């Protein structure tokens, strides 16, 4: 259960077309991440699937049933909101039980399901608190709990980690991935952070101005980006792009090479430059080098090479890791 098909879905707000006709297939049990810069329509797309926005044209099918005109509650989906959207005047227990109460379930059954969900998310001790007394991570967990109890066909997540701090984000990322492995329910996840997309997704859908730029597995997108947009969006630090003579030499309008595919030498190489900023992460160092031939290039060096501001270095892109793009930015 949890097979969702979008067919020629269009969304307009007044005169503005936010999503031009768009087709998308989400398979049962898949973890799909919509990723893109802000304003790319990823949240709107999620809200169309949830039924919180009406489609202007096209159809949405959930498990073979046309859901285009169904109200949100009848679609059998559960959503975790960016603001968590917990009910502030209810205890955690009541928050989680709310969808069950609305479904007219008996109090005993409600309590049983709440206990089960609390067990899964390890928050039995929080049940009698109110949202205002919880930390960001705990609220996040309650919001997920409220989604789980309904046993939905699919979970929808709208940037659920954007309000958490760096360390917590990593932990929750892992927890959601583990949850998916346990429940095996379809999940659709919206984020602007490509790291979240890469680490969590079975399938990433990269959106730009309402269009799907590319959809595929994380490694597929990393290895074979269809265009400059995807290439620059996926991977951290960002891919280096070089135009002009250097690109022409490779028969392309622009070439791209990822920082991890640039070799740095203190003696020789095709691109000579001086070190600007060197960011030491311990495990790696990101070196930003100002070259004459190729502009500012970021290189990632593993381990022990020590370079510092002002050093002269030479860079060599790995020949088999160079991406070539034509004048429209499409990969050749």
């Amino acid at each position, binding site marked *: 259960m949890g097979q969702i098909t979008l067919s020629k879905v269009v969304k307009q707000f007044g005169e503005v077309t936010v999503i031009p006709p768009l087709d998308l297939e989400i398979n049962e049990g898949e973890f799909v991440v919509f990723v893109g810069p802000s304003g790319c329509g990823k949240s709107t797309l999620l809200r169309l699937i*949830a*039924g*919180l926005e009406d489609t202007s044209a096209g159809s949405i099918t959930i498990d073979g049933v046309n859901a285009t005109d169904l*109200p*949100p*509650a009848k679609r059998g*989906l*559960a*959503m975790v*909101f*960016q*603001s968590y*959207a*917990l*009910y*502030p*005047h*209810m205890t955690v227990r009541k928050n989680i039980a*709310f*969808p069950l109460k*609305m*479904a007219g379930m008996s109090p005993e059954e409600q309590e049983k399901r709440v206990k089960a969900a609390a067990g899964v998310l390890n928050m039995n001790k929080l049940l009698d608190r109110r949202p205002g007394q919880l930390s960001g991570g705990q609220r996040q967990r309650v919001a997920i709990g*409220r989604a789980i109890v*309904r046993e939905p066909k699919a979970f929808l997540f709208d940037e659920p980690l954007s309000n958490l701090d760096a360390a917590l984000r990593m932990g929750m990322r892992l927890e959601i991935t583990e949850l998916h492995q346990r429940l095996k329910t379809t999940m659709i996840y919206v984020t602007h952070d490509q790291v979240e997309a890469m680490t969590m997704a079975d399938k990433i859908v990269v959106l730009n101005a309402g269009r799907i730029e590319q959809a595929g597995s994380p490694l597929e997108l990393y290895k074979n980006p269809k265009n400059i947009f995807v290439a620059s969006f996926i991977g951290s630090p960002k891919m280096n792009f070089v135009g002009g003579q250097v690109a022409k030499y490779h028969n392309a309008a622009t070439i791209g090479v990822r920082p991890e595919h640039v070799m740095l030498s203190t003696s020789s190489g095709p691109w000579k430059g001086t070190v600007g900023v060197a960011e030491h992460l311990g495990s790696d160092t990101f070196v930003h080098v100002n070259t004459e031939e190729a502009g500012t290039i970021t290189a990632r060096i593993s381990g022990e090479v020590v370079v510092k501001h002002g050093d002269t270095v030479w860079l060599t892109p790995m020949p088999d890791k160079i991406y070539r793009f034509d004048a429209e930015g499409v990969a050749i």
Partner: protein
Amino acid sequence: MVSPAVAVLLIWMIVPLAMTIWFSFQQYNLLYPDRTGFAGIENYYYFITDFRFQPAIWNTLRLVLGVLAITTIGGILLALLLDQPFWGQGIVRLLVLAPFFVMPTVSALVWQNMFMDPVNGLFAHIAKAFGGDGYDFLGQSPLMSIIIMVAWQWLPFATLILLTALQSLDREQIEAAEMDGASVWSRFIYIILPHMTRAITVVILIQTIFILSVYAEILVTTNGGPGTASLNLPFLVYLASIVDNDVGMGAAGGVIAIILANIVAFFLMRAIGKNLEH
């Protein structure tokens, strides 16, 4: 630096209250200037045993509760209505506020002469058009008439505060409830109403303070009558001090009124205090 300023402040704020209490224990009637001195609880005794006191207390309560019921329920309904998007929203919102800017005296006169007058009032004309008779609102149901006047004046205030609270409700909460399968009614009961609780409290308490001291409307229209049918506590204090010229008894009535108001004030302070924390 702070302490002396605070002391001056306390005196400024407290002395009038203290003086009222002091006078309430003095013999002090302007008609008999020679009779002075300590009166004990005599003023209180006479004020409380005055045949008009019990009706005044009951009328005060009826007035407050009646106006609160109309403005709070009406205000919630209006706020829900005005929160919907519709054409001409801006103008309608402005017009809803209009009664708030009409002076109480003017408002009372308008209601008395133009609506409730048993011969020439609008209601009488409407009644006649349907073959009925003019009803003497202020004569037959004086307190209810005053409740309607005051409620008309305060409805905009309640609406404004409740609308503001409604607009501060996180849209995502409503959407979450929608996804959770809550009907329109359930969303109102479980999400919207609890969200507005604090605003409703504030509306009720602030209005109570002002409605406890309603006075102009009574003076202009019924003068407390017929009999004691529309007499409330502030009006009784006015009658005692000005009409009967008994300052001591007026002061005693004032103290009773202040105690009543302060019981309300206590709750209002707690609500506002919570708001400030928030």
